[in-house]
């Protein structure tokens, strides 16, 4: 058996430390090390892509007054007159200190501008993830247990849910719940530091809008994974040896099924960060999405770079969380 030497090595590595500590620590260290070149590559890519853009931020700032000495002065002030390579090296130097420069428009630190916008976007994405995980897993397990009529109803609902564009769904929900019934606010964001209730109400429609499609795909994945887990041989052995049906479904099958579902949830969360940009437009939420669109049209390079940096860090962080959960669920990858 090929697994034996591997098991021995692993045991030798782990005997000295409490179980789990070594592996998670190792995983985190490896991930962080891999993240550094990743962030560098993405930041470099966007740096040059942005500088290639036609359109001049100086013109954007000065408007009609962008002539002669004024233009040159601002250009110099912003450091845009220096050679591209010099700009790039400075940029990387600053990046090493976690800085990406000041916003060209508000003269605030670009990272601070982005941080201001994070609560709305994270509320939205995390809320939608919780909705899709809870709703999706419940619906998926239910559909897997009732293979026939109800099961396929869930299946069809999930596919239809995945085929509805979120920006349109958002408008339809506004049309029904805000315009027609007037139950919920149509748009706007109340920070939860101001009013918890107001925050919750303002988030309901955006969260449902963003979360519904993900819920559909989580439900489908859960259903498929549950069906295949319940079909595996060990289920029969456990059942034959007196393990209760409830434990078979919710302990054994669900934990096995959770392995692919975890990966999917990570992928969906990252996808939601992109979709959030559009959903924020629908509900006029002051999140990073609106900031991204504004800064892109204004050629506010530092803010765009800060956005790329933050989103990449969030993506890396989510992947680490997924890896940790994954390794907890699936003992075969613990040493990865």
């Amino acid at each position, binding site marked *: *058996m090929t*697994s*034996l030497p591997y*098991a021995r090595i692993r045991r030798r590595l782990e005997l000295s430390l409490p*179980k789990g500590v070594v592996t998670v620590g190792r995983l985190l260290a490896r991930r962080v090390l*891999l993240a550094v070149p*990743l962030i560098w*590559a*993405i930041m470099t890519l966007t740096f040059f*892509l*942005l500088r*290639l*853009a*036609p*359109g001049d931020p100086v013109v954007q700032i000065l408007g009609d007054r962008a002539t002669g000495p004024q233009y040159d002065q601002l250009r110099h002030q912003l450091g845009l007159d220096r050679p591209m390579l010099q700009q790039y090296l400075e940029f990387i130097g600053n990046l090493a200190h976690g800085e990406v420069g000041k916003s060209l428009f508000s003269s605030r630190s670009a990272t601070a501008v982005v941080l201001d916008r994070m609560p709305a976007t994270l509320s939205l994405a995390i809320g939608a993830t919780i909705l899709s995980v809870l709703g999706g897993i419940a619906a998926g397990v239910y559909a897997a247990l009732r293979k026939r009529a109800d099961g396929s109803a869930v299946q069809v609902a999930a*596919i*239809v849910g*995945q*085929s*509805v*564009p979120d*920006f*349109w769904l958002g*408008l339809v929900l506004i*049309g029904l719940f805000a*315009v027609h019934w007037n139950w919920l606010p149509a748009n706007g964001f109340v920070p939860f530091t101001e009013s918890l209730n107001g925050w919750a109400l303002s988030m309901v429609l955006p969260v449902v809008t963003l979360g519904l499609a993900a819920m559909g795909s989580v439900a489908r994945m859960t259903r498929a994974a549950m069906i295949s887990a319940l079909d595996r*041989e060990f289920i*029969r*052995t*456990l*059942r*034959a*040896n*007196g*393990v*209760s049906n409830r*434990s078979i479904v919710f*302990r*054994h099958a669900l*934990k*096995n099924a959770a392995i692919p579902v975890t990966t999917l949830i990570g992928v969906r969360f990252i*996808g939601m*960060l*992109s*979709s959030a*940009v*559009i959903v924020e*437009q629908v509900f006029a939420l002051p999140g990073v*999405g609106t900031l*991204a*669109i504004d800064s*892109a*049209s204004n050629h506010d390079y530092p803010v*765009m770079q800060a956005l790329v940096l933050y*989103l*990449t860090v969030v*993506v890396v962080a989510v992947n680490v969380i997924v890896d940790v959960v994954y390794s907890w669920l*699936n*003992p*075969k990858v613990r040493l990865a």
Partner: protein
Amino acid sequence: MITWKRLTVGLRRPMAVACLLVLGTLVIAAVLAKWIAPDDPYQQDLSNVLSGPSAAHWLGTDELGRDILSRLIYGARLSLFAGLLCIAVAVLLGVTAGVLAGFFAGRVMILFDRVTDLLLATPVIMILLTVLAVFGPNMNAAMIALGVMLSADFMRLSRGSTLEARSALYVDAAQVFGLSRTRILLRHIVPNVLGPVIVRASTLFGAALFIEAGLSFIGLGARPPTPTWGSMVAAAGNAIYKQPWYLVPTGGIIVLTVLASNLFGDTLLDATVDGAARARPRRWSRLKKQRQATVVSATAVKTPAGNAKSDETLRAPAAVFERDARQAGEGEGPKTGLLSVSGLEVSFPSADGWRPVVTDVGFEVPHRGSLGIVGESGSGKTITMLALLGLVPSPGKVTAGKIFFNGRELDPSRPSSFNVVRGSEIGFVAQEPMVSLDPVFTVGAQLAEPMRHRGRMSSRAAHGRVLELLDLVGMPDPRRAAASYPHELSGGMAQRVAIALALGLEPKLLVADEPTTALDVTVQADILDLFRSLQEQLSMSMVIVTHDFGVLADSCDSALVMYAGEVVEQGPVDEVLSAPAMPYTAGLLRSNPYSAVALGRLPVITGSVPDPGAWPSGCRFQARCAVATPECAEGSIPLTTVTSHRRARCVRVTEAVRS
């Protein structure tokens, strides 16, 4: 794996055809927009803005009085083209890179891994916004960029399929035959990769369409007045208070398109998954492979090898049976009925009603006795065993018969009536230990579970008992074994754990399904020894399902030979082995590799077990029987008594025993 062949099966499903029709219609409408669209999409009519559906404007008019239907048809051009462009880029780039990475593996693979990591971690929307800022409102550039990012998905997918195809035997064979690498790639690998790629592409087409529409929605697409689906939804959103209808056709067309492409992919996937399930290899072929690998085994020792001995053994056991008969008759002594099965019939639904696959099976297992059920694949031995556990796989069910166990009647047609005995009174050991343990729980957790929930033990007590059990089944280091996961054990060790699982609640009966078949030859004897010693130590009864006469001779005291769903012979093992009363048993024995003459050709029973719908009237073995007579086809053949404890289902039973 999704093969090309299974994919074409999926393509013929009505749902797939319907989806293709919808998508095809949209594409044709987009191409022929100039001739099909009822109106000029730019023709404004300010006297008739935001009207609902009417005869003049089937889908109403927009905020400038333009015909919505015509604008949707023209909008399809941009949207469908954007989706196709993106997917084409993603597939071309991803599949090429993925197939090469999978085929050449090594360093190339590591490089591609890094690139896919990079692409998958890139914030898609930021790149798209940047690209749109660079190239202006040009959706093509954004879609190509999106295609590059989505190619990571296809890269992973096609690399996986390539690795899978590459390790397949036919690719090895092709390499042995000296086919060039390019040829192998194109002829054997690419077709295997295309299946999953098509399925994935149809889903990602929907995703690309969403992103295109979303970008147009926030005003980053084609400039007005060019119609795009996304910008029309945005306009509908602005008019939500005045004309909610406007939202219906504009969003509806996107839902329809994406739904068709999602359902198309889903239907293909479904068809291929179903196909894979049906194409699962029969168990017999697996057994045959194992047999070929098995040359000599310790289990062969007791098998009757020569004819010289058989005369002797034929006479000797008679005394034993007389003793057994006495005991049974008096209804006392240690060896009386723990399990009694009679008239068992298991059926599966077929086109014409319930079709029995196992009929009229009956046997008894005394306390501390052991029964071996033997037969080829398709003989019904496994189904019979599962019926004992109330675990006949759905949609099958027990349609007749009685099961008495330990003085109580279990209703075999109601699987739930077995809940009380499973685990606590009947333990089960499956064939393949590596797949019969839950891979995500430690051995200790799995063993303790029935004890805690059924046996109501505390977790500490259960843990102690787990260690005892692991010691009992001969695990060298129980503490370490309890903390291990199944994949960390060897096959033999895993089977010991599986046996421990079955013994957890001290059952009176142990049911084992081919318990040594999946193990290495050297380990088989150890496991059989373990069974024997456990049976003695714990005073259990055993039912062992096997195709291996060595196992039968070694571990069982009575035998039940099954063929085509019925019992054809039963009796004490020694006697059945030495003087089979039924030609089928004799044939099986002759084809046993352990008793084969060196360098001689292994005699086989020609033909195969008839499938349940194809049973002949009379003896089900007649077609393959060398000594069949016309009498064999007349009526059903009863199970007749040969000697006091032997019965066989054969019209020539006595002749067979004599010859």
